[in-house]
């Protein structure tokens, strides 16, 4: 710190963060520290996959089918090539495929949660602040959607969207359609929480004051209410991220998600499942463990965050 002096503003912000309750609780929680480290490692290795991975599994021209079904750390009988975690049925290096697959999974997960968050917050703010018919329509829609399992809703949206996509773009569009499907199936949680919090906040004096000085409803919602309802949203977003990653894996596992030529973790598990009886366990096991570790650590982090932000649990 000493040889890299910070600007006063930055310094004070960092100071505030380091002195905050939340950071103090973080330091006290081994679970939180561990899961943060795991998530950080996984995210970084996904982001820098092209630098870490020995091969590019998304480039079909680089594959050699004769390398198929090579066991972990054992040289292939025909080509003599050796792979850290073995290869799958197409001769793809499982380690590289996991790194690239995790990229797809994380990207879809984060983007879907962001999409759900923006949609949910907007609709939640509007229905909480405006009330009346607008609120009834939005919240009853949310209630109806809640009665369906979200994976079913996502499959429905995916199916409809795929029907509208021309075949030649289907592979490129599959990722975006996945994001749309998972995001649309997940906005309800955000909308309900934000609406509840907005109903509480809009009766407080500072909102009244803002209204009195003539600020527009849009400005009040965005500048005054939103910052005060964000902390529960943060908790939901973290937990939703774990759920979205699993939802993506489920969809891809069922064969309706990421295409086989650009596999996500779920696609890899689906491919590996076909070779479980024949003894090629590594094709299934390594992607499955990666998915488990990723989803578990994000979830633990979310749980910790929920406890940490809940004043009643302190």
């Amino acid at each position, binding site marked *: 710190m000493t040889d890299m002096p910070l600007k006063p503003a930055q310094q004070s912000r960092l100071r505030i963060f380091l002195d905050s309750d939340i950071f103090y609780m973080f330091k006290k929680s081994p679970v939180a520290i561990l899961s943060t480290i795991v998530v950080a490692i996984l995210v970084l290795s996904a982001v820098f996959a092209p630098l870490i991975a020995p091969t590019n599994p998304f480039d*079909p021209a680089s594959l050699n089918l004769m390398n198929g079904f090579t066991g972990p750390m054992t040289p292939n009988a025909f080509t003599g090539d050796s792979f850290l975690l073995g290869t799958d049925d*197409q001769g793809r290096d499982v380690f590289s495929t996991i790194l690239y697959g995790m990229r797809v999974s994380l990207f879809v997960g984060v983007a879907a949660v962001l999409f759900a968050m923006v949609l949910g917050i907007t609709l939640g703010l509007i229905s909480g602040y405006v009330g009346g018919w607008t609120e009834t329509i939005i919240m009853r829609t949310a209630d109806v959607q809640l009665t369906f399992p979200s994976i079913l809703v996502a499959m429905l949206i995916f199916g409809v969207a795929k029907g509208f996509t021309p075949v030649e773009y289907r592979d490129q569009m599959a990722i975006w359609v996945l994001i749309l499907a998972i995001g649309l199936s997940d906005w309800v949680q955000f909308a309900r929480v934000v609406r509840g919090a907005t109903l509480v906040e809009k009766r407080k004096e500072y909102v009244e004051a803002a209204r009195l000085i003539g600020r527009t409803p849009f400005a009040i919602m965005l500048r005054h209410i939103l910052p005060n309802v964000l902390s529960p949203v943060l908790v939901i977003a973290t937990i939703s991220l774990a759920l979205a990653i699993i939802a993506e894996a489920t969809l891809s596992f069922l064969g309706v998600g990421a295409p086989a030529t650009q596999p996500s973790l779920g696609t890899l598990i689906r491919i590996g499942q*076909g070779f479980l009886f024949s003894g090629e366990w590594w094709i299934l096991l390594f992607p499955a463990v990666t998915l488990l570790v990723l989803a578990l650590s994000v979830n633990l982090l979310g749980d910790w965050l929920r406890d940490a932000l809940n004043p009643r649990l302190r």
Partner: protein
Amino acid sequence: MLRKLSYAALIAAFAPAAYAEEFTWAVTTDPQTMDPHAVNSAPVLGFLNNVYEGLVRRGQDMAIEPALATSWELIGAGEGWRFNLREGVTFQDGAAFTAQDVLFSYERAASEEADTSSWFSPVSEVVVVDDFTVDIMTTSPNPIFPDSIANWMIMDSGWAEANDAVRPNPDGNYATLNTNGTGAFSITNREPGLRTVLEPHADWWGEAAHNITRAELTPIQNPATALAALLSGDVDFINPVPVQDVARLKNHANVKVIQGIEARVIMLGFPHEAEALKYSAETTQANPFADPRVRRAVAHAINVPAILQTTMRGTAEAVNQLVSPAMRGYSDTLGGEAVFDQAAARGLLAEAGYADGFSFGLKCPNDRYLNDEAVCQAITAMLAQVGMRATLDAMPVQNYWPELRADNYDMYLLGWSPGTFDAEHPIRFLASTPNEEKRLGSWNFGGYSNARVDELLPIIQSEVDDLKRQAMLDEVAQILQDETAYVPLYVQPLVWGARANIDLVQRPDNFFILRWVTVN
């Protein structure tokens, strides 16, 4: 302890009696219709062979044997064939079988709406001589005609008329879901995609060799799931067994693997007639596959031995023509086939003006042939290595055939098993110029056309001398190879799995015949 014992006694006393002759089997593809004339595909015809019957049928060794006809002979010098029908046969609803039903079934199966009409391209007329004699007249002498109609199934005319199913309907009618055949089994419950229940036809004319009282067909699309069901005893028979599991399954005490080479050749097809590629990012004004050099480059680019070794685990055999060596009329004289050679493939592409390659769309089924999607993925990678960048679109077979019929492909995967077990069959269906009137080339999706092939086909069909016939078949095989009309890849293996207490017969056409099953 006592209670446990009594439970065991209870199970021992009741279970075998209740389930002994019930038989459940699982397949990847549910037969898409119950109408024997609506779809000419093996899952449909193979299944319906248990319910409907033809004039002739194939025995365990694939030889033609009497079924609804007891005997048949050539009329005159070959103007047609006379079939003497079996008397005392009843349909499953009790109606009697007569020559009128044969005439009706001919008109139905040869109609424009039927997918089976090309079987009758040599037929000029069907004449009812009396109640139990039918003459089928042919336009020219046709020595293999009885061989070619083993899958032509006879439907009751009265039943079809009463239920408004006189013609097959691709969109579905009464006969799509209901059946009324003369076969050994009748369908008591049909739930498409879920289950189909069969029970023995009490008044069947034949001697029942099976001991089944109730049979159930369940489609299980995922081969690993089907295998798990077989291992746990939920089903008694599965087709196919995933090739990767064969080695392990052979050591399993409760399960057996029945293996053979199927008559089915897996190949790649091309849009010969198309003006331009449909799914290309840059080649939108031209069709590279119209150039035989590009098609031959495809053949050079594919490492078939690697597919056989890795994806098919050594269970399949390479092939250089549209039929397997086990078929009548297989060409031994064929020479100059394209072997795996990436440099040659690149050279041919450059010669054809595609030195930088091009992108296109590859269509593939994912529930029809053994490892079809994995094979297509491997092909995608191999083609990419010489510059042909394919976008793979794999789909269930239900959507697959309509897509091919609508010309929505730049290259496609096809498996062909000649119903007649003769090399003439794929020429008629896959290599003849499509001609609806003559009912030729009905599965020649790409519209491949060669005047010499079209000229030879009718001569092959009526040639009685085996040597002369073979010379013409050799010539056609050589033309198809020189022009790379298709890229034949390999002969698909037959891998069936059954519980150890099941006795059954595997026919090389992959038809599963229920009346040869014994539950021990």
